[in-house]
């Protein structure tokens, strides 16, 4: 098994960093459905390479093509165009039962007429594994997913979380080279969901196989993944490590989709050294790192994360981005306070303030406040 070291370059590179053959590769894949005489382009040309042992997430809003991508990898859909490779081998026309990967379905899709044991043993029996080995491996995997003693239960006699673990065991027991999970935690409540996230991560580390994980829950993707592909409308908008995606969103869409982010735009007034100054209003200015591509007069879209912004009654000193606004809303969130501040031009900025020192809040609704942040927390969007 190889270590994943997706460096900064991974943001643009579709190929994995190491020289190894990727576990899963989509090469310019297009999928069109025809429904009611109309062509629906569900996937519009996706290329990505997932490394062996990687926890890879597909993240995106409903209908962006995540499931379609997954079903093409598993073999349930034939791509309209493009090539699917598993461990370097073109499997575009190989049926699902001949692919050495397994899928955990969104709805679990357990066999309702079989008990837990038979569900889990299904794949091994089809592969004609000897009975003694089936017995050992099914027993082992049921231990991993903590279902020992429930072998005789039918799916309908179990809770959602237990069924989910059966689905996981049923796939893992075959020791596939890759596991596809399509929103496997979608049906669970928050607490069980978080417990299962930790569990899944642990299992993935223990068995050391490639996980391709579909979710539309961004925090789930951020906490669990080695790399994330953010999809929108049939295309990959950004492919990078979670931190990179969060800190350096590649597009307005990604910035808006991941976490809460504040979108601003301004005109470059001057560039001094590595910092550009954007004018917003009279007393407002935004500082932004300049990599030499910015020049005076240019309009820039940028984003700032709410937790990077400081809120104060007085104008702060120093080389900071500084903007002035009026507090429109204050929300007490327990561990933090959240403010919505309206700027002079009508833009709304969300600010998170840690509840670290005391429980008093800095500003009330209607107060006039100054917002400030470090230059490097302004991030220009393409």
């Amino acid at each position, binding site marked *: 098994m190889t270590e994943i070291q997706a460096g900064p370059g991974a943001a643009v590179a579709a190929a994995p960093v190491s020289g190894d053959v990727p576990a899963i590769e989509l090469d310019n894949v297009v999928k069109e459905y025809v429904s009611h005489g109309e062509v629906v382009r569900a996937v519009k040309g996706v290329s990505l390479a997932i490394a062996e042992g990687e926890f890879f997430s597909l993240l995106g809003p409903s209908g962006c093509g995540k499931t379609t991508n997954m079903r093409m990898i598993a073999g349930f859909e034939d791509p309209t165009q493009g090539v699917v490779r598993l461990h370097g081998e073109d499997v575009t026309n190989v*049926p699902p*039962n001949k692919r050495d990967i397994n899928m955990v379905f969104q*709805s679990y*899709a357990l066999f309702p*007429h*079989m008990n837990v044991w*038979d569900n889990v043993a299904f794949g091994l*029996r*089809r592969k004609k594994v000897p009975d003694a080995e089936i017995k050992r491996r099914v027993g082992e995997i049921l231990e991993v997913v903590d279902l020992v003693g429930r072998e005789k239960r039918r799916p309908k006699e179990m809770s959602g979380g237990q069924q989910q673990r059966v689905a996981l065991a049923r*796939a893992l027991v075959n020791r596939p080279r890759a596991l596809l999970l399509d929103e496997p935690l979608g049906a669970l409540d928050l607490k069980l969901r978080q417990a299962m996230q930790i569990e899944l991560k642990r299992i993935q580390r223990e068995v050391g196989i490639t996980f391709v994980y579909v979710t539309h829950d961004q925090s789930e993707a951020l906490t669990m993944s080695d790399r994330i592909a953010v999809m929108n409308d049939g295309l990959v908008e950004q492919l990078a490590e979670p931190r990179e995606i969060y800190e350096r969103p590649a597009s307005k869409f990604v910035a808006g989709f991941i976490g809460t982010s504040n979108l601003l735009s301004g005109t470059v007034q001057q560039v001094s050294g590595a910092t550009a100054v954007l004018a917003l209003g009279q007393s407002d200015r935004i500082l932004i790192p300049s990599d030499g591509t910015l020049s005076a007069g240019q309009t820039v879209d940028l984003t700032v994360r709410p937790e990077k912004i400081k809120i104060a009654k007085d104008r702060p000193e120093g080389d900071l981005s500084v903007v002035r606004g009026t507090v429109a809303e204050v929300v007490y969130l327990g561990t933090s306070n959240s403010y919505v501040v309206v700027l002079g031009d009508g833009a709304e900025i969300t600010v998170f303030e840690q509840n670290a020192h005391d429980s008093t809040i800095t500003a009330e609704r209607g107060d006039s406040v100054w917002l400030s942040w470090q230059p490097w927390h302004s991030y220009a969007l393409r």
Partner: protein
Amino acid sequence: MSRLRAALTPYALIFPGGLWLAIFFVVPMIVMLSLSLQSGSVEDGYAFTFNWHSYADGLANYHDQIIRSLLYGLASTVLQIVIGFPVAYWIAFKGGRHKSVYLFLLLLPFLVSFVLRTISWQFLLSDNGILLGPLKDIGLLPEGFRVLATPFAVIGGLAYNFLPFMVLPMYVALERIDPRVLEAAQDLYASRFQTFLRVVLPLSLPGVFAGVLMTFVPATSDYVNASVLGGTNTTMIGNVIQNQYLVTQDYPTASALSFTLMALLLVGIFAYARALGTDDVLEVAAR
């Protein structure tokens, strides 16, 4: 007050149906039971005498017809499964958006009266009719070949007449299968055949089970098919009972035969339900 109402509601709901069953089902059953224990003749009238000899005589004289009825019922049921399953399967999985159209087409012939349908079969199968006549003319079949009055005609007629009652429950069971479950089977290395054998078939068994219950009983006690399509060697117990009632007017024998048939069918159904009506069967099928 509202508690009282809540307590009475179930009874209020069952009342109309219960009354209906009591008057039109239980009462005739009791009348029949008493009839079967009477003795006498048409001329002198019948009197209740606890005469259980009608049962013994009925069994002694008509056991051939009883056994034949059970065999025909069984054969036609098997035939219906063989013919009906692919139909149900096709409509459920390949019917697409037109499923209800296909189901309607399946039921269409059954809007015509049972007897009329059977008579049209008689017309189709007659010795020199539109089916056999041409085949005989071109020499494909010998002159003396016939289908009418053979067991094949009767069993075929039975299978045809009760087919929807077999197909519909099978269709319902197949239709309810989650397509994802079939994909899961394929994902877990099952071939198409294995998927059918291990998943589709076991999951459709409850439908087959219900279909058998709904067709075996009426097919076994049917008399229309045997009288329209059959001959003297294919007489079923239904024909005997009908004859005893309406022609010979030997009511005790007719009633006793009816009860004998009913008892046999009940025992058969219970044995069948015990053997196949549990989830364990599915589990065995799944291995």
